[in-house]
């Protein structure tokens, strides 16, 4: 009998799912037909509910306040920062040995991140790297997720959107890249002192080769000189890669986030209902992934910087 009940409830669920699917499909079609694009295709008049303005992409952050140099991305990052601060301060203010409520949630967050970082960098360095990596992660993540709140980018002020995902403002990813770069170099120098420079300016073998040449050991000298030249160029490549990281960091985040923003915009323009939800879900996922990549790569470069050169050579 139980089995039968299960069967009937299962078939009921199936029916409900099919019904919901059909409704969603109908909504999609209706919104498509009623939108500006549908009106163009079917030569009808667009319904005002579905008539979304043509998307126009503006890469620089808009300045909604005339005469004040305050971009909408800046405003949003204020909100992100406020939320993060409130979240962590209120969780840590009444911190107890036996956690409850918000503290539980924040601790879970903290521990997952700390485990990720300490697994990569080891416990000792992991704890030192944690604040920067975690803050980058949280900042990027909350910037991305905040902009997914419905209506976020549609609030207008002086004809410009009042709020905008800070990750889509090139200044923010670049700022994060610079922070990451500085932190990496700082730890490189801290771990190796001036020896850290040897990774980039590698002329030891070259000079050794010259010396041997003048001392008359032509063969070994020549050998060493060639090896020295190779390592010298490797050093230059290292310098280059260090700066290329800056650019790749910047444009990876900026590009992904901006592309997401444009994708959602276009989806809303084409099919105002249902379809954008799919892209919203994707954006939620990409926001997380980008945050993880940014902080994860920073962590990787940190680990590379503190590793001894001998170890790296193997």
């Amino acid at each position: 009998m139980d089995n039968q009940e299960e069967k009937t409830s299962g078939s009921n669920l199936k029916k409900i799912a099919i019904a919901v699917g059909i409704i969603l499909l109908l909504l999609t079609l209706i919104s498509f037909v009623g939108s500006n694009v549908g009106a163009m295709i079917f030569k009808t008049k667009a319904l005002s509910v579905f008539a979304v303005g043509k998307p126009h992409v503006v890469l620089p952050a808009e300045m909604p306040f005339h005469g004040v140099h305050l971009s909408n991305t800046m405003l949003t990052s204020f909100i992100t920062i406020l939320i993060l601060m409130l979240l962590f301060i209120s969780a840590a203010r009444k911190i107890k040995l036996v956690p409850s409520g918000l503290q539980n949630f924040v601790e879970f967050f903290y521990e997952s991140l700390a485990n990720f970082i300490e697994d990569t960098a080891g416990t000792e360095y992991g704890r030192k790297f944690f604040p920067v990596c975690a803050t980058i992660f949280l900042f990027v993540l909350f910037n991305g997720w905040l902009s997914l709140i419905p209506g976020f980018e549609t609030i207008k002020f002086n004809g410009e959107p009042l709020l905008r995902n800070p990750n889509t403002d090139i200044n923010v990813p670049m700022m994060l890249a610079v922070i990451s770069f500085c932190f990496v170099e700082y730890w490189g120098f801290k771990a190796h002192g001036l020896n850290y420079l040897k990774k980039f300016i590698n002329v030891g073998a070259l000079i050794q080769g010259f010396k041997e040449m003048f001392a008359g050991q032509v063969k070994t000298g020549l050998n060493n000189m060639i090896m020295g030249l190779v390592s010298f160029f490797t050093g230059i490549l290292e310098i280059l890669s260090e700066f290329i990281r800056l650019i790749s960091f910047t444009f990876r985040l900026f590009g992904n986030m901006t592309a997401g923003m444009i994708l959602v915009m276009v989806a809303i323009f084409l099919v105002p209902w249902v379809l954008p939800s799919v892209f919203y879900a994707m954006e939620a996922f990409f926001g997380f992934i980008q945050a993880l990549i940014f902080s994860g790569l920073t962590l990787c470069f940190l680990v590379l910087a503190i590793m001894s050169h001998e170890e790296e050579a193997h």
Partner: protein
Amino acid sequence: MEGQGLGLDLPTFIGQLVNFLILLAVLTIFGFKPIRKILDERANRIKESMELAEATKKEYEHAQAEVQKRIQEAQKQGEALLTEARSIGERLKEEAKAGARREAQAIIEKAQADLKRDQDKMIDHLRREFAGIAILAAEKVIHETLDKQKHLRIIEETIRESALGKKVN
């Protein structure tokens, strides 16, 4: 400017940098540090209590073994004591029995000896008494010629003199 198309803007950049640094500082000081501390404390506490539990368990097991050992020892001791006591009791009983027997024997012997002595004394006494009477009677017979009546009277007199006469005296 080349950057204009992308929206590169130094004031915004610096503003965001300051934003981020403030966020970093605040989160580190007011968020991460207390959380790290509490997590470490909790880990320590758990470790400590687990060690304590382990130690307590070990201690308990140790105590248990000790108690077991003690009980066994006590049992063994008790048994030994019991056996000893039993043997002592047995011996005492034997001894008491032997003593009583000996005493009884001694009493009997003494009683017998006393009896014999009294008997001897009596016999001796009787004998002497009798000899005296006989002598007395003989004297009287010898001293007087006797007729039958006298004879009887003499004997009677003699007896009276010997036994009754003495008693009167």
